[in-house]
């Protein structure tokens, strides 16, 4: 059996597309956490997540909600004095946790992302109402009512899509994506 890579190395490998420094360059200054607009909702701040990766706390990182609260605003990325692409690291952690099917229960993010990806493979364009089942069921009655009101207002203003749009050369489009990874399982 081949030896498994340490978690910190796995994360470094996941960041292959990032142009900046790996997480090992982090000096724990906390600029990322101070600048993050969603940090108050995270159970561990971005700085803590980096420290946990370096301490090889794989399961603890995957159990965190932090990266699912990242809105991809890139404020941390442009302010990091060590030029670590922290937003890309958050994306990498999302991918890693979806691949391993290991994430905090009750989060909407993983299911929503999967549904979004499969719907684009199907039609080539986004259809917002089709994504609703992945989240409204988790909002509770009050949330569901609020969401229905918002949707109704949009509908009355002619802003709610009713008919899904589609790429014209959809067969070629699907074959194109199929050459990247076998998407049969997803689609």
């Amino acid at each position, binding site marked *: 059996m081949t030896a498994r890579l340490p978690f910190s190395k796995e994360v470094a490998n996941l960041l292959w*597309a990032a142009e900046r420094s790996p997480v090992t360059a982090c000096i724990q200054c906390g600029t990322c956490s101070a600048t993050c*607009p*969603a940090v108050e*909702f995270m159970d561990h701040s971005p700085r803590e997540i980096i420290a946990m990766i370096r301490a090889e706390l794989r399961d603890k990182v995957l159990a965190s909600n932090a990266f*699912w*609260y990242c*809105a*991809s*605003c*890139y*404020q941390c*990325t*442009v302010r990091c004095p060590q030029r670590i*692409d922290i*937003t890309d690291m958050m*994306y990498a952690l*999302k*991918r890693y946790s*979806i691949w391993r099917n290991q994430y905090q229960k009750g*989060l*909407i*993010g*993983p299911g*929503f*992302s*999967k549904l*979004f*990806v499969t719907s*684009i493979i199907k039609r*080539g*364009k*986004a*259809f917002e109402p089709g994504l609703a089942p992945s*989240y409204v069921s988790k*909002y509770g009655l009050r*949330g569901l009512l*609020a969401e229905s*009101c*918002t949707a109704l*207002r*949009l509908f009355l*203003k*002619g*802003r*709610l*899509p009713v008919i899904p*749009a589609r*790429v*014209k*050369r959809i067969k*070629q*489009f699907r*074959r*194109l*994506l*199929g*050459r*990247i*990874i076998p*998407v049969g399982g997803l689609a």
Partner: protein
Amino acid sequence: MKAYAYFPGCSLERMARSYHISTLETARALGLELKELEDWNCCGATAYFHIDELLACALSARNLAIAEKDNLDLVAPCSGCYKNMYFANIHLREDADLAEHINAALEEDSLHFSGTINVRHLIEVFVNDVGIQEIKKKVTRPLTGLRIAPYYGCQLVRPRKDHQDVEQPQFFEELLSALGAAPIRCITKLRCCGASLIVTNRKAALAMVHTLLQDAVDHRAEVIATVCPLCQINLECYQNQANREFGTKLSVPVLYFTQLMGLALGIPPKRLGFGREIVSIPRTLLHGEKKEVAAHAR
């Protein structure tokens, strides 16, 4: 007449229809030709990067390759589409192995990526290619004294593209000043609107939306101007829910910057997609008589 390949993106087909309409009208008034990209597909938004980077790259590459056929720069009015396609273009240009892999897939649709065009955001095309002075010359109905909060959001400026100023950009304020308006210096102009968290983490997103609205109201903004359909939808359509969450009664109209530009350029409001607002706009905005609006806002 300078021509561009125009990538409206999924939101502009319906939810942000007024952005689409006002973009085309404003561009025409400024002498730009926007040719809609033939058979374009979704840019992948953020969700694709949660699943697979190569898939996300392939989605953008298809759009880039279609634009290359006409050798036109690709213009996106949505900050998310812009960021995705901008960086896919850079990564594919710099990484020959990646480009080879993606090109093998593009063959399925008889397309090829060579990296010959650039990806631009609509506001950046207006500011840099048309020029603020030129726009100022074409203003026939100045928005005199209108207090507009320019909201840049995130992905228009971040992560850094070329030598752009990511901390204190000023071009949006300069553009609004050229229209005769009075841009407000909100400290939250670059703070995130919550983006897709509005779906996946509602509580967090509403807090982020509320922070922005409160800042605009504190600065007595009459309108917030946006450059992205998702920012617009979060700030306008979820204003109600944010108010309920925080027990406030904030009410700020949120318009696309192209709608405000169009008004200043003398284009009739009905050709700029007005009438689809959820938070109603000051009636006087569409008919002049600015003074009353200002008095009312106090």
